[in-house]
Each structure stands twice: as C-alpha cells, then as structure tokens.
C-alpha cells in the first residue's frame, strides 16, 4: 500500500467508533471518526475519504440520510452501512441508495477486513478504468478529420458544443466532405461514446430492405427472413444512429421514422412486441431538403424534427488552405498502408491541387493522392502522377445548358462511359460512394445505351 487509504467512521456510539478506529489504525489505514451525520458531511467535504463506515441508526440524521446526502455530492463515494440487526428490507434500502454493502454489528473481523479490502480494490480499479478510458479517448479522436481553416475550426466548435447534449443533428454538405466523420466526432465526444455508433446509408437500400435494416425482423416475416434479426435502431441502444442520405428515403419510411423518433419505440418487421431503444440520432444529406419539402417529397414535420441543430460542412474548394494539410495526411496514410517511403509534392503538383475545383471534395482528393502514390515512380508527386480527370481540363463547356446539374450529369456520364459503367471504379474516380452514384444515375436518368 503506497498511499494510506482514508476511512471515515461515523457512529454515535463512542465505544464503537473507538474500537473501529483502533482496528483500522492497526491495519495501516488513515482513520477519522465522526459522531453524527452533520460532522461526517463536513469532514467528508474537507477530507477526500476513500471509504465511509456509517452506522444506520443515529439520532438526527440517520445513516441512510447521510448516505443519500453524500451520494448526491459524490456518486462514486464508497459507503458501507453498519446495522444493529440484519434484515432484508434494510439491506435492500441501503443497496438501492448506492451503499457498497452493509454489515451487522458486531462485525466478524475477517469479514470486515475482506469487505473493506475488496471495496477499496474495486474503487481503485474503477479509477484505473476511468484513466484508461481517458487515454482511450485520445486514441479514438477522429484523426482523419483534418483541417485548420477557420471554417473547420468553427465546425469543431459546433461539434464540441452539441456533442454532450442529446440534440438531433443534421449534417449537410456535398458528397465527399466528410459528413460521416463529423457524425463520428460528435459521437465520440458525447456521453454515449462507450456505446456504438451505427451507420445506415439510407440511399443504398431499397425501401423494404431499409425497413428491415432499421427495425429488424422476426423469423419468417418475409421471404428470406430465415432468422430473427435486430435492427439498427435496436443495435444503437445507448449509442448513436447515423442515417446518411436521409433525403433519399421514401414517404412511407419517413412516417415510420417520425414515429420512432418521437416514441423511441418500434416493432420489428413481422413482430408484435414493442421494442424500446435509447439512441441519439444524427442524419446527413447532400440534398436540398427544403426544396424536397416544397415539392412534397420530404415530410415537413420530419424535416423540423431532424433539423434541430445543423452543421454545414463547406466544400473543399471553399477551404483550400486545408489542402496541403490534407495532402500531407493522405500521403502519410498511404505510405503506411503501401509500405512506401513518404513522398513529397512538387510545387507544380501542389499548385495544381490548390487550383483544382474538387467537386468530389476530400474523398476525391484522397483518391487523387492514392493514385499518385501508386503510379508515381519518384520520391516526389508530380502533376503527371495525378489522375487523368484531375490533371486535364475535365471537359469542354458547350453551347447548351451549363447549369451545375447539367455539368454534373455530363461529367458523371463521361466517367461512367470511360469506366465501361463499372460502378465501383466510376464512383472511385468521381470520389463519391457507390450509393451516391446510383442516386445520381437515377436522378439524371443516365443509361448505358445512351452513349
């Protein structure tokens, strides 16, 4: 025992106080005594005691009252109650109110020694555990959330201020800006951090699948449902559920979602039992939800339910001073993954990267750096190592519709044709995920035979 554990004995009977005092003193503990609850409270607030032995029956403030008062100040306080006689209701009351244990007077010395030793050991383990968790926090910081620009600093501030609350958050931003990373940052800085964050890409699933994915299903509830399965809402119990591409869910699912958000209760598909789950919800979209509301494609009530606290992630082209930092981060990441020497970036290549429009945002930049790391033969990344569609003018402007949507449609069509409609490859080149690409294909009604 490097440091003496501190014990406070609270008993109105002097002889009990004294005999316990001597017993603990000989056991090498630092011991203090108090003859009533008031003195005990004062000593506790001044003294940083590791353990309290409190007599249940005292005139004035009872041991139980003292327990409740101390627990209100310090929920981790370790208290053993001493009772004159053993009874189940007494024990239950004591334990319900947070006592570590209770003993009957007189106490068997062996029992007392073990009880106190175990209690103190448990407390030190708890402290050790908390320290380990604190260290863990440093490890799980989303280190791939990069950016020192004022826009990103503002976002970090927003994340910090909203994380500890249970407020619903809507993250908005173009594809590839890192909406999921922000959701994770909120989660790991929240009080729910030791429970899971469950991510659902609503745009990637058909309506029926999404329903089963979110709510789970009972065995035999539909063809292929061979086993009972927990839904994502159930899995997120205690934690956070992150619904990406929320703008793409059907009106029917919107009603279901609204119901769950309001009641935190739901049924599994094909099930009758009400399932309760305690989750925080974070959603994300790159679609103009307000317009979808106007068009009747997105329920207004759900929109307001989700749009409680909004974080808008700027596109990379609006925070270009983060590009060198991001490039450096991705080079470091890929050199580790590929077991290659960390490359530098030539001035021309960096100028190019800074000039480029980055429609696919950070994800596109990441892909560009990855490609350059793969194809580049030198120790320095040159302009020629950058992907074709980045290093050349993307495509010529023509006389027709030059709106952003038209340009996007044209560009996606071009990449799809170049990759022979290999969706994975095309999505990689575009710097978006497959689900987003499917949505774009559907939105612009792109077809393979159109080419």
């Amino acid at each position, binding site marked *: 025992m490097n440091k003496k554990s501190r014990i406070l004995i609270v008993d109105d009977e002097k*002889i009990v106080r004294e005999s316990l005092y001597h017993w603990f003193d*000989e056991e090498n503990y630092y011991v203090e005594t108090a003859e009533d609850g008031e003195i005990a409270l004062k000593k506790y607030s001044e003294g940083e005691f590791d353990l309290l032995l409190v007599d249940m029956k005292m005139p004035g403030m009872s041991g139980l009252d003292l327990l409740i008062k101390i627990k209100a100040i310090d929920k981790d306080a370790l208290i053993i109650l001493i009772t004159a006689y053993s009874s189940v209701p007494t024990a239950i009351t004591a334990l319900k109110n947070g006592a570590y244990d209770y003993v009957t007077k007189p106490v068997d010395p062996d029992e*007392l020694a073990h009880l106190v030793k175990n209690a103190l050991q448990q407390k030190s383990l708890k402290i050790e555990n908390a320290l380990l968790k604190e260290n863990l926090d440093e490890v799980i910081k989303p280190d791939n959330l990069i950016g020192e620009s004022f826009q990103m600093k503002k976002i970090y501030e927003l994340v910090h201020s909203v994380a500890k609350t249970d407020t619903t958050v809507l993250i908005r931003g173009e594809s590839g800006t890192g909406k999921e990373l922000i959701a994770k940052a909120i989660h790991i800085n929240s009080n729910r951090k030791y429970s899971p964050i469950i991510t659902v890409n609503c745009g990637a699933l058909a309506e029926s699948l999404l329903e089963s994915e979110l709510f789970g299903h009972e065995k035999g509830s539909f063809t292929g449902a061979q086993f009972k399965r927990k839904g994502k809402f159930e899995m997120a119990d205690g934690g956070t559920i992150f619904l990406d591409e929320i703008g793409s869910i059907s009106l029917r699912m919107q009603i279901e979602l609204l119901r769950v958000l309001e009641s935190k209760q739901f049924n599994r598909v094909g099930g009758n039992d009400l399932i309760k789950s305690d989750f925080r919800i974070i959603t994300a979209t790159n679609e103009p939800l307000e317009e979808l509301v106007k068009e009747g494609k997105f329920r207004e009530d759900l929109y307001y339910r989700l749009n409680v606290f909004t974080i808008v992630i700027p596109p990379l082209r609006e925070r270009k001073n983060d590009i060198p930092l991001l490039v450096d981060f991705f080079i470091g990441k890929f050199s580790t993954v590929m077991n290659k020497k960390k490359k530098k970036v030539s001035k021309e290549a960096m100028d190019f990267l800074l000039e480029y429009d980055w429609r696919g945002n950070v994800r596109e930049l990441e892909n560009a750096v990855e490609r350059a790391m793969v194809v580049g033969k030198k120790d320095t990344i040159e302009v020629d190592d950058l992907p074709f569609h980045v290093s050349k003018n993307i495509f010529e402007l023509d006389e027709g519709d030059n709106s952003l949507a038209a340009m996007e449609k044209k560009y996606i069509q071009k990449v799809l044709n170049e990759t022979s409609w290999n969706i994975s490859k095309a999505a990689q080149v575009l710097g978006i995920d497959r689900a987003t690409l499917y949505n774009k294909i559907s939105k612009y009604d792109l077809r393979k035979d159109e080419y």
Partner: protein
Amino acid sequence: MDIYLTPLKFYNQLLLQNLVAEFSKRFSCKIHLNDLKVNIDDFFSIERKQYYSTQILAEVINLTDNIEGKVLLLTDVDLFVPALTFIFGEAQLNGKHSIVSVCRLHEEFYSGISNDKLLLERTIKEALHELGHNYGLRHCLDWDCVMHSSNGIEEVDIKGNGYCPACAKSIEGYLW
C-alpha cells in the same frame, strides 16, 4: 525494558511456562511472571458472553502504571470490542499494555481436537503481535512477519512466528 507476563483468569500453567521459556530465548530483557489481583467480571457482557477487552486494559493500566516495562496480559476468556464479534488480543499502540486471549487459539475451539503444540505456537505469535503494537508497529504486509494482521485462526497459522527484519528493528532487545 522488561516484559511482565500477567495471567488473568488464565489457568494453563504449562502454556505459561513454555511461553516464558520461548520469550526468554527471543528477548535479551528479563521475562517476569506477574501476579495481578484484579476482578474482570465487571467487564463481562451477559448478552455477548464475552469480556470487553478495552475495559480490562483500562483497569489494568490503572493498577500497573508504575511498572517499568511491557505488561502482557494472558487470559483464557473470550474477548470482544463493541464493533467486532471477537478479538484475539488488543494493545496500546506505542504503550506498554496489551492483552491476548487464548480462547480462540485452542484447536478444540474449531475442530474439537486438542493440540498443545499448536496452541503454544499460536500464543507465541499473538503475544509477539500485541507486543509489537506496544513498540509502535502497525500491521505488516509480509506474511512471514508476526505483525501481519490475523482476523481468523487460519491467518494466525499462515503468518510467520517472528518479526520481519524491518519490524524487528523497532522491538527493543529482540534477538532473532
């Protein structure tokens, strides 16, 4: 400083002689047998059927305060302090009085089988232990040391029968 072994309601003469012999081997000081006339019946708890150790000590302190040395009381009766079901002994920390009960050191107490050798060994350990408190020692973490706490008879048997080198330094005239 001499040691005064003082029997109180203690009738095992053989054990007493053996204890004196053992202490004489271990200490450079003189070991006295002290005959003290004191009635401890006032300190008997009818409810608990045990004797209140702290009160016995207080009474003896009054009567033997003039003695220059350590006064170790030995008794056959079962001892208690109010908070605990029983105690093997009690001592003044940094004082000169202590008491050891052999009631629960008898093997008969646990198994019904008498074992004089074991009783002597246990008595030596507890007597040395309480004496250690008189010399200012608190409980030692070393199981080989007699100053290790013993809250049950198993722990009395497990721990060593002498002081560890660190604790021995505090005991005046200890030879082992």
